């Protein structure tokens, strides 16, 4: 059974309506977003379902997931801590900052923390070069910038997010 289609029938219809029926394969991008929103990443099952909806091969869908860095084919942390290490930031110590942050959290770039909450990513310029070290947190549908960071301030941000998640879990949020 196609669970995506069953759960999001209307939304999928609305997406498909934007494209001429003979080019419905073009709807692959929004459908992938939908699938990623649903599970946090694009599951193989979701790829198969999208392929079925669009009448293309699952391999073609997977190829698109693989091409775009913002589609994930593996479970990812709820929060993406994206540290810029581009040249201007590097000159302001971003590389050391990143290393220290990884050490403090006990993970490498790209790895998810054991609680499943955070993943550290290295990114290119995010437009705040003069306030490096800088990172943005992507998660819960928003993007938050944190500038002029030190290891301590960064850990505080992370701790706050962790507490938020904990409270949610205990139902005290």
């Amino acid at each position, binding site marked *: 059974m196609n669970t995506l289609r069953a759960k999001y029938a209307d939304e999928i219809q609305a997406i498909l309506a934007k494209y001429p029926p003979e080019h419905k394969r073009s709807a692959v991008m929004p459908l992938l977003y939908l699938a990623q929103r649903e599970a946090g990443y694009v599951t193989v099952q979701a*790829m198969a379902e999208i392929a079925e909806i669009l009448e*293309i*091969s699952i*391999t073609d869908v*997977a*190829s698109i997931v*693989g*091409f775009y860095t913002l589609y994930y084919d593996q479970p990812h942390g709820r929060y993406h801590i994206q540290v810029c290490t581009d040249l201007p930031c590097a000159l302001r110590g971003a590389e050391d900052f990143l290393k220290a942050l990884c050490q403090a959290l006990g993970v490498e770039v790209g790895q998810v923390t054991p609680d499943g909450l955070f993943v550290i990513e290295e990114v290119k310029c995010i437009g705040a070069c003069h306030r490096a070290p800088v990172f943005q947190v992507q998660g819960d549908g928003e993007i938050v910038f944190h500038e002029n960071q030190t290891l301590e301030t960064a850990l505080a941000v992370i701790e706050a997010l962790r507490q938020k998640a904990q409270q949610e879990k205990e139902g005290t949020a």
Partner: protein
Amino acid sequence: MGKMVTLTIDGQVISVPQGMLIVDAAKKAGIDIPVFCYHPKMEPVGMCRMCLVEVGRPVIDRTTGQPILEADGTPKIQFGPKLETACTTPVSEGMVVRTQTQVVAEARRGIIEFLLTSHPLDCPICDKGGECPLQNLTMAYGPGESRFQYEDKMHLAKHVPLGELIYLDRERCILCGRCVRFQSNVADDPVIAFSQRGRALQIVTFSEPGFDSYFSGNTTDICPVGALTTADFRFGARPWEMIPTASICPHCPVGCNLTLNVRREAAAGGREVIKRVMPRQNEWVNEIWICDKGRFGYHYTESPERLRQPLVRKNGRLEPATWEEALAFAAEGLRERSGVVALAGGRLSNEDFFNLYQVVTARQGRAVLYSTMAGGDYVQRYGLSGDANLAGLGKGDAVLVVATDLHEEAPLWWLRVKQAAERGATLIVANARPTKLERYAAHVIRYAYSEVLEKVQSLLAGESPEAQALAKATNLVIFFGQEGLSLEASEALATMLARLLVQNGQAERPLSGLVAVWPHANTQGGWEIGFRPDPDLAHTLATAGAVWVAAADPAGDDPILAQALEKAGFVIVQDLFLTETARRADVVFPVQAFTEREGTWTSGERRVQRFYPAVPELENTRPDFMIVAQVADHLGIPLVGRSASRVFDELARALPAFAGLSYTRLAEVVEQWPLVGRGDLYYGGTVYENTQGLGVRLARMSAGAELSEWPAVEIAPAPADDALYLVPVVRLYDQGQTLVPSHLLQQRMARAALYLAPATAAQLGVQTGERVEVSAGEWAETLTVYVDANVPVKAGLVPRSTGVPLRQPLWVRAQRAVLEPQP
């Protein structure tokens, strides 16, 4: 031909058709431009930059529109500031191309150096080593040394199974995209694709099973490196150790041209064995492709189950015997009895059929073709003719495909019909269920199995849009099969289709005609020589004085025929294996496989083609035609039996359609385009050049008298409301004796099952995986159900050659099978 364009390449002036790409024009002129991503059978993409050349064009005076001339009166040529890709640039009038200059050499050197930055260079253990475009072009143009850091090489997975058939070595892949483009554009199975980007770019498959395509093996031929290899051949041999022999695929009526690669092998006790099967170019038949059944389905010839000794029945048991004993015994059995019936299957060669026919007719016997499909005589009179090539079909032409699933039954015809549709021919597909070919059809005719004849008759009546499309086509090629048809109904179908060609005025045209989608490679050959199917085979066998079976296993296919055979007076069997029929025989002769002997087959398009011996025969076996001649000799009937070519000469003398043919004539070749299989493997891939024969199409027989009315056949109506029409359908990978020994394909082989429409399954109260008992009179089977929305209602589809004794469609009663309570 269209307009010609004259240009100069490396000082050589040539004229080629307008629109041709520089790379192909150069090839025509004998000038090699190295390529990786370009392939002459696919659209160019310009991805690899290996083909860069200097291109100059005449400077045109804008005011006069005339070329500006140099002082010496030659046109002034302006070269571009940058090199251009010869694979994407079409030729133009007055163009000047330089492929041998310093700049070009530097560009090539640069590209090779880049490609090698992450190439493992494991040529010594690479299957492609020795026939590798990258290796060859590196030798020819590469720098020999790299300026890049060795430590920075990417290391990627080296044994990635893309399914069980094809392996990927990610390090070796140079990302040319040929495989992906072949699968998307040629095979239309987009089951492999690129994932990731930059240096992490790689080929992936997500289909189930992996790399799910009948054409997958072809990607290993066109891959310009050793990145794609077949599980069958990888690490099997080095290309230069193998001896190539021309052959023909034994598996379906297309008759794809093959090259068998053979090597002596320590592991086989020093014997020569087949290491791999490769396509051989024949632009009239398979171009440069073959399907995976042809590529991997040769292992039956080396099965340990092969018969190695004649057997003779003594005191009720089959005992080993010498050839002399067995031949004498067979002759004696025949001499004592009248009413001999030869029952021959479509795997025999023309020579085998011919000799068998000679003997049985000399004994006033009957030559019966073991087949449940008719129409071969119509193909003789209304088939394609002369040099007609399906590749010639395009705009204004039409192709009609009736009662067959070409993708499963004859994959290369599927491919060629698809291509005809893509070139603009009107494709009309008629079947009771959807098939893959319908994607390209302009019209789809759907019918209930029982209505097929009425539907085709209505095409003759001419009112429908389909009928009009057929009527106005310049050329009309009709492929017809037997899905859902009895022998009598298929006879009626063939008659109607021949009538359609006559009525539309297409029957006389060379590129119009009937093509029968037979179950075997040489069923058409059987028809040509005079064998005919028998609608009441059981009766014929049961009342025969003697039955002489060759390349057929009636007892294994159908218990009713097994019983009939028990009643026959005397049974001779010639086969590769100890079949159920052989077990019931009085004499069994072990025959040679097609890889061990010479012979010819007649394809469904009536092209007679030669196959050659590639490996020494299995000891103590003989070719079918020779066995027949030797038995005949004991009976005092003189037949040629020493060499296949001499039998063929006799045949050519006896049969008008074969007049003038000989083995020499069949071995003739002409130059084909694209040029492949020469020293420049980077261009076409590792497909073999055809040097041993393109074969010859048989002359069309004269139509003779007016076409008779077709027999009034009525497909039996449903005996009861809840009856199910059980239809055997063809799956490419079945459980036939000539495929099962190819273990590699096991996972993909069809199993005995009953495919039902959801509504039918619901009516019976069953789901996928549950079992249903189907029965008709004494005939009963219990089958596992698969619910499939593509199956017509009230029909049950059963894959052929999977062990279910169903040769023809049958009305049955069906009910859910109740499991016996365990005691």
